[in-house]
């Protein structure tokens, strides 16, 4: 099937070359980090995780979001999703590739990475995270590939894919739950120490993932002859709508508990994010714009007139997506580290080089996504036409 990927028009190749250039630049920036250490990042003794881990967390969500098309289609036989399930699965694959790359670029000693397997530590959440992430990646590759191949040959997918598909559903929930457990099981970090963190992660994942999928559907419609189906997109947008509302609701619960109880160890972090703390407020404008974006997006999506508007829908989805990225990507990690356990305030901002490396990882993910989507859409075109 891969031969499809090497046949494309000018636009396709321009895009691939563009991605390759970004990857190349990112790689050069990474090599410098590899040889000189993480000193090139904006991270510090107090804020020991930064942009890489933040984007990792966000993308785990996007990957898990793919399950929002898998469940209706495979569990509830929702036929309208027939055409886009493969898109959801391949989006998960690309996101997971980025997740794993982000973990690797974040390691201080990446060459010793396999120590996680050589000395398995069942008490460490990172161990389980590695298991579920790789498991989910494997499942999605196998399922997506087999189902697409069957479609191309106009036969039914092999029977053994069915149990794998069912298995992928708990895995999707699992990757984001375990990723939340990385944070919420740490005794000293009041901001993360909340049982609602995993549900909140899932809610924002189920908003961001499908929102991105809708945007991708628009792109596919524009550049290929394959039509994912307006009705499928509408159903997806409802999923985005309720998920983002749930996410905002969970956040408000958080705000209530923290401010009403007034326990300083928990409050100071939110205070820092929303209003600034002891004069430090770098993230305040970001956080507010994030929440406003999500809230406005939710309003757009909840009103049928606006949701069904062909022009407005992608705008609303982009708002939700960017809002969720700010919430999880910028606020969630920095918020946990500021103030530090000793209540010192050290602010964090990624350096230019850190951002270049991050873009390189994103470009790699988009390259994988482009190739997989090229396969999927081409096969669908062939079969449909």
């Amino acid at each position, binding site marked *: 099937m891969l031969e499809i990927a090497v046949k494309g028009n000018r636009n396709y190749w321009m895009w691939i070359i563009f991605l390759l250039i970004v990857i190349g630049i990112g790689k050069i920036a990474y090599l410098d980090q590899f040889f000189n250490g*993480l000193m090139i990042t904006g991270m510090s003794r*107090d804020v020991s995780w930064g942009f890489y881990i933040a984007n990792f967390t966000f993308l785990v969500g996007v990957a898990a979001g793919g399950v929002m098309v898998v469940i209706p289609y495979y569990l509830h036989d929702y036929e309208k999703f027939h055409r886009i399930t493969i898109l959801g699965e391949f989006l998960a694959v690309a996101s997971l590739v980025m997740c794993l790359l982000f973990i690797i670029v974040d*390691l*201080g000693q990446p060459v*010793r990475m396999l120590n*996680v397997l050589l*000395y398995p530590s069942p008490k460490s959440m990172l161990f389980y995270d590695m298991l579920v992430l790789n498991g989910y990646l494997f499942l999605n590759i196998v399922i997506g590939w087999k189902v697409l191949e069957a479609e191309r040959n106009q036969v039914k997918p092999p029977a053994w894919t069915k149990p794998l598909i069912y298995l992928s559903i708990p895995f999707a929930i699992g990757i984001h739950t375990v990723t939340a457990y990385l*944070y919420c099981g740490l005794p000293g970090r009041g901001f993360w120490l909340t049982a609602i963190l995993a549900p909140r992660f899932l809610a924002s994942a189920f908003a961001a993932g499908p929102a991105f999928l809708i945007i991708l559907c628009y792109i596919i419609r524009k550049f290929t002859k394959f039509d994912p189906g307006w009705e499928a997109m509408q159903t997806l947008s409802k999923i985005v709508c309720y998920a983002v509302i749930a996410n905002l609701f969970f956040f408000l619960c958080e705000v209530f508990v923290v401010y009403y109880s007034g326990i300083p160890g928990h409050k100071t972090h939110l205070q820092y994010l929303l209003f600034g703390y002891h004069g430090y407020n770098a993230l305040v404008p970001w956080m507010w714009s994030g929440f406003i974006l999500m809230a406005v997006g939710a309003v757009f999506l909840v009103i049928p007139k606006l949701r069904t508007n062909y022009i407005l829908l992608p705008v609303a989805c982009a708002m939700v997506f960017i809002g969720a990225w700010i919430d999880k990507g910028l606020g969630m990690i920095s918020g*946990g580290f500021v103030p530090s356990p000793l209540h010192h305030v050290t602010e964090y901002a990624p350096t230019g080089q850190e951002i270049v490396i991050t873009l390189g990882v994103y470009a790699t993910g988009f390259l994988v996504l482009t190739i997989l989507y090229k396969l999927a859409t081409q096969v669908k075109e062939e079969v449909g036409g």
Partner: protein
Amino acid sequence: MMEKSRRCFLKVAGIAAIGLGAAPAMNFAASDSHGSAAAEKAKSPDALHAERWGMAIIVKKLNDKIAKQITHACHTQHNVPDFTHEVDTQAFPNTRAVNHKQEIKWIWKEKFHYAFPDKEDEFLNEKFHHLPFMVTCNHCKNAPCVQACPTQATFKREDGIVVMDYHRCIGCRFCMAACPYGSRSFNFRDPRPFIAETDPDFPTRSKGVVEKCNLCAERLAKGEQPHCVEASEGAIVVGDLEDPESDVRKLLKEHYSIRRKQSLGTEPSVYYIV
């Protein structure tokens, strides 16, 4: 123990390559034709033992000078880099500018309300504002860092010391997120240009690993007291918390003491006598 269970696991897991790698090492004793006995590994007869090492800091006896002395003794003899140190550009050309937020420290002085943020009090006894509180790794009984580490690079020894295996650390910094006391530092860069005089009795670290206080395990093994104890002019006492007759326990019996963030249940082994 560790070693054995690890091998067992690997065998069970059938990671053949690793099994092969370990196999020759296990035969060392047998392969020596001249020796009568098998090779053995042992502790020095002088080594100090404890069931659970702990520390008592008599805060009254500290002042800024002693605090400085303590940090200096620990840091120089453990080759902890000092990023204010002027780099020898001949030996280390092209050393880049320093980000001082990426500092490394094992034991240092804090004001009371930073060392004990949960005990902050408007009407706190005046003198507490000025006393230097020395903070370091607490060698927690229930150490969150040990639990978090995905490679067992951070682990708890039988005698309660939480140690780091710098050979094994992958630099994921999960332990730093897990430690509620900010006791850990990460080597964001090669520390060597910033070590004024390398102490030959202790290794330096490489870039990309986490480090922290090791309660001078290397000195206890030789029967010596930790550097901080020696530099503290009697303000720091290290001993066995499980032994009712130890100096530490006697101090704790006679004086009121506090520990950092006791409510988290980590059971720190460092006590502050105030």
